[in-house]
Every structure is written in structure tokens, then in C-alpha cells.
């Protein structure tokens, strides 16, 4: 009684570098990367809200790009390098995450793993982003608690910290 008896789709073998480790999974070809992470690999830090690419709750970094994992098939990650919130937090709270806490950016928190991934990518690709650039870059990540202003402040503070460390 597997899914393949429901949908006559084939299963595919996926091998990828996930948070620094090589992992293998066999998943139905139609399974999204988000579902593969959560249901097959047990990584539950990546959240699901809209499941159609509009909210950013499922943001992860695939091959150095920010993607909505609900819009990517698990099979497409084959051979890729994937970083999730668990990988980012492997050595404890990062400077960026600490700034989220200090700025009061975390309310219910369910959008926050996605926000952190998007913010991390922004800091890596545009470390000197202006406030407008931060708002634009982050605009795909919804927060219904509307911590937006706090998140911008956290990103700016982390950017300052990284510049002075550099």
C-alpha cells in the first residue's frame, strides 16, 4: 500500500549533500522537496503554509540559491547541495539568529526559519544591502505577525557585525 499504487508514478532515488552530509532517499517522482525534507528525511524546521510558492515559509538554499522548497521536486535536488535551517543552526544560534531575537523579530515564529534562510542568503549575496534592498529581497517571505520592521533591523545589525568581523 504505497503511493505508487495510488499514482502510477515511479519512485526516484535522490542523493544530495544535505547540511554537509551525503544523504540518500527514494521518493515518488511527484514529491516536493519540502515534503521530502519533512516527511522522508524528518527535517521539520522548514515550514509549510501556502504550498504554492507565495509565502516563503519553506525557504531553503539549494546550490547557493534561495528557493521555495514547495515549488521544487525532491528529484530536482538530486546531486545538489542543500542547506536548511537545521544546517544553518548546527553550531548553535548564528549571529543573524541572535539579532532576530534581540530585535524582537520573533513572534509566533512559524515564518521565522524561512525568514532566517532568506536573510542569510541576502547577507551572503549583498552584504551592504540598503534598507530598500532588504525590503525588496525579503518581500517573498510573509509574516502574518508582521515582524517586518524588526526583521529588517535584525538584518541590518547582523550586516554591521559581519562587516566589522571581516
Amino acid at each position, binding site marked *: *500500500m504505497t*503511493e505508487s*499504487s*495510488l*499514482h502510477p508514478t515511479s519512485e526516484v532515488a535522490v542523493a544530495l549533500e544535505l547540511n554537509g552530509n551525503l544523504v540518500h532517499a527514494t521518493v515518488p517522482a511527484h514529491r516536493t522537496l519540502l515534503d521530502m525534507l*519533512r516527511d522522508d528525511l*524528518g527535517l*521539520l*524546521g*522548514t*515550514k*509549510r*503554509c*501556502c*504550498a*504554492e510558492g*507565495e*509565502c516563503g*515559509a519553506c525557504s531553503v538554499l539549494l546550490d547557493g540559491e534561495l528557493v521555495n522548497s514547495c515549488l521544487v521536486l525532491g528529484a530536482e535536488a538530486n546531486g545538489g547541495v542543500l542547506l*536548511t*535551517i*537545521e544546517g544553518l*543552526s548546527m553550531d548553535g*544560534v548564528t549571529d543573524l*539568529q541572535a539579532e*532576530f*531575537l*534581540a530585535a*524582537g*523579530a*520573533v*513572534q*509566533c*515564529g*512559524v*515564518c*521565522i*526559519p524561512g525568514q*532566517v534562510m532568506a536573510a542569510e542568503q541576502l547577507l551572503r549575496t549583498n552584504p551592504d544591502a540598503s534598507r530598500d534592498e*532588504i*525590503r*525588496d529581497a*525579503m*518581500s*517573498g*517571505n*510573509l*509574516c*502574518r*505577525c*508582521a*515582524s*517586518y*520592521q*524588526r*526583521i*529588517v533591523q535584525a538584518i541590518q545589525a547582523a550586516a554591521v557585525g559581519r562587516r566589522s568581523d571581516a
Partner: protein
Amino acid sequence: MPDENQKLSSSGPNAGTHRVVGQPVHRYGGVDRVTGAQRYLSDITFANAAHVAFATIPVGCAAIDAIDTSPAWAMPGVIAVVHADDLPQPVARFGVSHKDRPVIATKMVNYHGEPVVAVVAETEDEAHAAANAAVIHYTELPGVYGLDAALAGDAHLVQDPSVRPRDDLNSTNVLEQVEYAWGDVDSDGISSPTIIEDTYTFPMVTHFPIEPGGIVAAPTDDGGIEIYSPVQHPYLLQRTIADVWSIPLSRVRVIAPDPGGGFGGKQTPRYEPLIAFLALKTGRTCRLVLSLEEAFQLMRRSGCRIHARTGFSESGELAFHEMQVDFVVGAYADVAPRVMTKGSYVGAGPYRIPRVSINARAVLTNTVPSCAFRGFGAPQVGWATESQLDAGARALGLDSLEIRRRNLVEHDEAFIRGDYEARSDGRWHESLEKAAELIGWHEPTPSGRGRGIAVGIKPGATTGLSQSLVRLLYDGSAMAYAGTSDMGQGARTLWKQILADELGVDLDLITIISGDTNSVPFDLQTSASRSTVFMGNAVLAACEDIRDRVLKLYAEATGTAQSELAHSPGQLVTPSGAIALVEAAQTALGGLRGEFVGQGTCRLWGEKGHPLGGDAAFYEFNATAIEVEVDHATGEILLTKHVTVGDVGTEINPLQVVSQDEGAAIMGLGHSLMEQMLFDDNGQIVNLGAIDYRIPTFNDVALDMQTASIENNDGPGPYGCKGISEGALLCTAGAVGAAVADAVGTPVRELPITAERVWRTIRDANRDSPV
């Protein structure tokens, strides 16, 4: 033991003794939230759980003719396929104000999305596939999807009269109505020199929590049940399950994982009785995880239409204010009658008005049942009253600020008169002036821009009961048991701060337990921004109870007379000086160790006959000022400044106050500028889901946004605090509306104020004005 029926009155600041109350302590559970370790309902794994999916039909109103479940049964993995005929008859109905919502659609579908068939299967995919296979034969009926249709003489009745047999209104779609009046509007209104009369609308909007939610139900060996649901009111859910399925409360355990956003949408039980039935019937743990689309069909704010007629004296004093207020409440009552009565009770605003008449109705339509939503009816009615004030100001050559200065009540002045008057419990002019100052009201508005200022008011809880237990352990660590659901407001952070100060325990050594009816004492609900006041007082009382107990046992253990001892926050005062409470506790406990357990209760009795069941414990008051730039060619609005000021009593955690204020204020931009649920002629939600329903994003926040608090330590909660979590969205719409009207010269009276509406307003005004 402290007096458990303590009257809620201002306790004033406890200056000098605070160490962490008042500090920006980081959020309890914050680290788990930033690292992804926090487990929301859909992150909790259950061994051998079965999965639930619903079958629905694509219309808002229909008679169910027949249901063919055999194609669903034939699908792989199916464990049960259930519809109304499979439940004990008659199918139970439940609800907090009216017992009108059936456990599953029974004979009728009354709104788009109402579950008709529930399937239990081994996997989520199998459950959905089988639900899709079920065949529902139905006859679509001419449902009522808007106010005019629902109020027409020959309207289809959303609820069969048999659902509310003893109700005079049962042959109409009016669920409840209420009238508030003082003075005599009819006699004198005509003589007011300036009378403004207009109609305003407020859209239906949905909560859109980033965690859509879900339910897990597991039967227990003793015939009871465990329900996991991210609810704001675990004890209400416990009672509902016990009532519907006749199970003793002691065998209904509700576990409430932290909601990933609530905003009022996760208060009342909806699908829980059904999922409980499925679990009891199949003997399996049954798990339902909702999609965002399903969350749209589970929760929304009631829309509203307000017709208002307001008279002003020559100098801009309000002479009278009349309103007909119609709330679009949807198919079942939920708490909507309360939204209607509470929202319209303060409908005339915090003003000095000699004559007022408000008639309000909760009108049933074939739409998603509306429920509580941050602001609870006050933003809807306030939108009209604030807009009327601005229209009056424009007619009289005053500005938004000046007209409010002239009409806003002073401290302790009545703004609701008549048999059940309400008085200002704050110095609200201070908030108004602060908002004006922060936006730079006295500097000229930059060209091409417009400014508006508005105020909002909402009654806090009118009755309440919160109970808490606190344990001071031998090693100097402590635990508090407090049933408030922590859904983003950060309640547990505050309990930690209170314990730290009152017991003298390090923040790091404090654990808060919540979300489990088996271990945490009763709390009425997490709503109406009550928790900081009610549960806060209960936690504070439990800490005082512990200090009393430490004192007594210390006296016994050391042979000191009790009369020679006293306690204060964090300390026991002995004849030889003050010692840390923790140290005194260890001395008192001695070699047997053990612990101290304190109990605290905060209860607010209602008042018989009062239209709200009692006077509010406190009022949330807010002043919001907004500056916009409007593109006259497209109608697009750019928010240049957004300022809100709340009358908070005392900030227990300034960081959390800012988060909540900004969050509420930005959420208020949703219904003001962009959000509205749209229905087609068949009652289907047109913009179902995130692609077509837009909520505020990073880019919608004003270029300059500031929040501030007025602290007069005049609230009934710990250290003089009041509840704060709703204030900043109460009058967002009024301030935006006034700013847009200031910029384009004509007001928009329908929310949301979209670019298209602004563009039309400009076009119509140009067309009407002589060239």
C-alpha cells in the same frame, strides 16, 4: 492565601524593586523558533497515525440529496468514510453562543468549504484521493452571499427555524440584534448646523495564519480521548468535546501546541468534535493537517456595513451620532453575536456625545462562519465613526487632530452613557498628542501628500477567570503553570519576568508549563488581550502565596515568631536583615528538601444586566497617524509615515510591546488597503489562497514607522499594566482613510482603499467638478 476574588483595580507601580519587569527580555521559546526546533502541530509525529481529509462541494448553499461513498471505500488505504448519517442521530450541534454548528454538514451545505464527507486513510495522499472519489449529489439553492440578499423579504434562510426554535428572529437571517441609545436623537438632531450622513463598508478578511493549523485526536484506554489542537482556548475545547460526546472532563485531555499565529482565528472548536468521533470510531490516532485554503474556509472576520448620521455644532462638538450597523457573520454563529454587541457598544467611539443611537445586527449569510479577529468588531464600526468625524472636520474647516481634541473624553469621563455607562480609564489625550507629535502634525504636509489621525477603542475582557500554580524548587529554580496559549504575543516571557522579580529567581532557572489540560490549571481563554492582566495577576498572586508559605515554614524551622518576619519581592525580611527568598526557602525546607507550591487566581465577576455581561477590566486605546503620497494617475498609495501610540498602563516587556504594536498596525493595513474575501454568484470563494489574496509584505510597511506607549501605571494588571495586543489596528483604516482624503480631496468609504477605488474617486470628483 491571597484573596482569590481580588477586585481588579490599579495596583500602581512597584518602583525600585523591579529587576527584570520592564526590561526587553528575549522571547521565551525564541531560540527554538529561530533554529526551526519549535514543534507546531504539523511537526509533531505520532506513531501509526491515520490521516483525515474532507470532501466538500463547490457551492455555498445546497441541499445534500445523496452521498455515494463506495468509490471512496474502494480506494487504497481507506479506514473509514463518514458522513452525517454515520453519526449518532440527531447529529450534534455545538457553539459558544448558539448551538448551531453540526459536527459535519447535515442535509445542507451552508458555506463553501463545509465538510460533507470525512475520510480516514493510512496516508495523507490516500485520504485526499479517497475524499476526491466520494460522490456527493446535491441541489444548489439560491444562497445569500451578501447583506442585501440576506435581508431581502423572500431571502433563503441560512438556518432552518428548527435550529433556533424559541427565537423570535428565526424566520429571518438576523441572528441577533442590539440597540444602544442615550439622549434623544430624534428630537434635536435636526437643529445641528452640520450633519454628515453616509454609508461605509468593511470587508470580510481572513486571518491567514502562517500555520494554517490542524487537529490530532487519539483514543485513550479508559474510553477517553486526547486532542492535539493549536487552540487559544484549550479549556473551551475540552468542555466542547466532553459535552458533544458525553465524556467526563477528566478523560478529555487537550494538548495545545503553540499556535503558529492565532489572531482570534484559533479560539473556538470547529472540526475537533468530528476528528474526535473519527478517532473513537476507528480506534486510531487521526490526524488532520489543514491547507491554507482550508484555513480560509475556517476563519474570517465579519464584514460590516454601517450607515451613519452625525451632527456637529458650529465649533465642531459632536451633537449626535446615529448608526445602523450590519455585521456579515456567515453561516453559523461562532462568537459573531459577541463581536457585534461588543464592537457596536463602543461604536460611537471615545467621544463626548450627548445623543447616540446605535442599532446593530448580526446577519447570517452562506459564507464561512466569522469568528473573533484582533479588534473584535471595534475596527469595523470605528471605521465609520472615525470617517464621519473627518467628514465633519472637513465641512467645518478643522483638521483630523483638532476635531478629536474637541471631542475626546478626559480621564474618568463617560463616553458611553445611559444605564451602563463606561468611563475613560486612561489619559487618552496624551496618546493623541503623542501621535500628532511623532508624525510632525504641526509641520506643513509635504506637497502631494495627505495626513490623517484617528483614534480607536476596544473593551477588554468583561468577565474572566485565570488560575495559576507556581513551584519554587529546592535548588532555587522555579516553574509556573499558566494556561495562556502562547501564539506569538509572548505570554510566557512575561510570566518568567514576574517570577524572576517576585521570587528572586534567575530568568534562566524558570520553566513555564502551558498547553495541557492534564497538568495546567484552568484558564478561561486567551482572548481580548486579557492574559497579561488576568493570568499575570494570577501568577503574581501565586508568587505571593509562595512567599507567605516560605515565611511560615521559615518561622517554624528557625523558631522565629511569624510576626517578626515579613516578605517583599524576592526577599524574606528577618530580624537580622533581609535575605534572599531562595535562601530562606532552603533554610525552611531543611534536610527533607521538598518544594513550595503557590496558587493564584484572578476572577472578574460579570454584572447582571450589563449588555456586555460586565464593564470591561480595561480599555485598549490607540491613536494612529498616517501620511500618504497618492499617485493621481493610478490611484496608488505610498505610505510615507505610520505612527501608533497605545495607552498601555505599564510596559512589562517593551520589546514585546513594540512587536505586538507594529504587528497589529501592519495587520491593520491589510483590511485598510488590500485584503478582502470575494465570493462568486454560487458562493464560492474566488480568491482562495495566497496567490489571489494578498496580505501586507515587507514592502507595504510605511517608509517611516514608529510606535510609542503612554505609561501612567493605571491598569488593573501586574504593576499597573493593561492589555495591548489589539490597539494598534483599531483605527488604522480611519487614519489611512483620512490621509487619502486629505491627499485627493475626496474620501473613499469602502474598504479596502485599493488603487482602483482611489482612482475612481479621483475620476468621479474631476467629472463632477466644473472645469
